[in-house]
């Protein structure tokens, strides 16, 4: 349904996208995950024909975004980042405008608008000016305009941003029910549990590059071979790091929150087969460092994400 091939985008001398390739099938919810400035919004803007890529190709339902933008636009419902909508219009007026633009007419239009307002929980505020709505409700109106014409492709840029916890659950339920039949949904998020709950597949982007792409459970289980140990140690941070990095059996070392002056937290990855906790603790104490805490844990998607993103950084520095 959506095909993206070696997409690049540069703003002046900033390379926002650096060769992105992925595809999304019918009936699939694809999650975009990445830190701030990773290029999620940029990718979505190219797919929705808001702006052209510097090079590469994006196709939606067999139509090229550069060649036939009208055909692409007709098939996409888009919720832009932070849901920009006309503040001076009333909710119902705005949806009426969207309905007309989307070729809905007469009774059908009225019915669809009522349905989508029900679905997103904005029926109560339909006579209000959008400028008087709270941010969460504006976000819902943004979602409603994207869903109105029941397009086969939905692109949602951070759909749950600005919502309270109860609303988040409601809206996630709405999104989950969207991928019925042949519909394709792409959503971006910073929230990992959200992505792992909602999406069939996750694309992790960092600095304009795809660093991983798989189902949430596969992403986590690929790293199931490894376990991680969280350590809280006392001593000079550089010495500690050098020591950990030179210890055998530790696959990756990551510093967590280096703000405390004397206590330092590390997360180290170890092979699942061997339990090295005993040797590790002895080694730490033998070196004269203080061992304050040691905790074994399984890798969550969050760890995978942080690992992938920081690994990239480390490689770059080398």
């Amino acid at each position, binding site marked *: 349904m959506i095909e993206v091939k070696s997409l690049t985008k540069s703003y002046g001398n900033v390379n926002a996208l650096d060769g992105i390739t992925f595809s999304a099938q019918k009936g699939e919810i694809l999650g975009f995950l990445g830190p701030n400035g990773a290029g999620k919004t940029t990718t979505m803007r190219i797919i929705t024909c808001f702006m052209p890529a*510097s090079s590469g190709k994006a196709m939606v339902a067999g139509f090229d975004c550069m060649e036939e933008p009208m055909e692409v636009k007709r098939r996409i419902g888009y919720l832009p980042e932070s849901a920009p909508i006309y503040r001076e219009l009333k909710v119902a007026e705005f949806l009426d405008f969207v309905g007309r633009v989307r070729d809905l007419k007469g009774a059908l239009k009225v019915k669809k608008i009522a349905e989508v307002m029900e679905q997103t929980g904005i029926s109560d505020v339909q006579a209000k000016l959008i400028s008087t709505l709270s941010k969460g409700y504006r976000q819902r109106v943004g979602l409603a305009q994207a869903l109105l014409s029941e397009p086969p492709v939905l692109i949602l840029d951070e759909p749950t941003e600005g919502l309270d916890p109860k609303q988040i659950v409601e809206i996630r339920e709405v999104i989950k029910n969207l991928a019925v039949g042949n519909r394709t949904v792409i959503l971006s998020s910073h929230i990992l549990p959200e992505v792992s709950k909602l999406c069939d597949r996750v694309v992790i982007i960092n600095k304009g590059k795809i660093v991983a792409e798989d189902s949430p459970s596969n992403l986590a289980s690929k790293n199931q071979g490894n376990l991680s140990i969280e350590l809280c140690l006392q001593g000079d941070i550089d010495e500690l790091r050098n020591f950990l990095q030179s210890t055998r059996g530790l696959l990756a070392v990551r510093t967590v929150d280096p703000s405390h002056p004397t206590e330092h937290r590390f997360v180290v990855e170890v092979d699942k087969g061997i339990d090295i906790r005993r040797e590790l603790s002895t080694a730490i104490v033998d070196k004269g460092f203080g061992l304050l805490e040691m905790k074994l844990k399984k890798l969550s998607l969050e760890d995978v994400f942080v690992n992938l993103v920081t690994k990239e950084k480390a490689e770059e520095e080398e």
Partner: protein
Amino acid sequence: MKNLTPVYLKEMRSYFSSPIAYLAITMFLLIASIFFILIVKQYSAVSFEVIRSNFQLKIDQLNIGEGMLAHLYSNIAVIVLFMMPALTMKSFSDEKKTGTIELMFTYPIKDSELVWGKQLAIFTVYAVMIACTLPYELIILYFKPLPLGIVFSGYLGLLLLGFAFISLGLFVSSLTENQIIAAVGTFGALMMFWVIGLVAGDSTMPIAEILRYLSIFSHFESFAMGVIDTRDIVYYLSFSLLFIFGTLRVLESRRYRA
């Protein structure tokens, strides 16, 4: 042009649900009314002089058309120049600033539908504003028969002039996301098109001829006097189309790969 109507209606709703249209119309009427009163006073002063001179002097100035309406329409045209930036400044700038342009550009709306929808919506607001001056003619009609030809050509001229001003305002607004810059830029550009006419004056040099031709008010004079000249109509229409074309090019430029 299927999506022209929805864009037009949306723009109209936006104009009439924000204070800007009401404010602009009120200010416009206030100032126009002051000028109307001054013109009436001037006319009655001239009338007295004519009576005192036993109908020997200035008798031609008693003509309602040249004595009142021509002045009225010329003054209205100048007030329009001052008010128009307030009507056009937000059209594209505000959409860029608030990000709603991202919706417009990702809905299946053609650039031409967007530009014409906005142009016609502002033109409607403008036409309402101009129509609010019709009571002046009714007041005159109460005392004297009205030369309808001049009234017709005067309003036709005002509509054409306004259409041209709007297209320029939209063009400037499409260049910036700052409404203030859009307003000042539009005002400055309109002033330029006025001032070049004053610079040219009555000079017969070729350059003066060109400047006079380009000047936006020199083409209005004959409308105000009751003369409808195709050359003037052609001027205003080509002025408008030039800037509408420019706006379309500006919108299109976002699609260049960069």
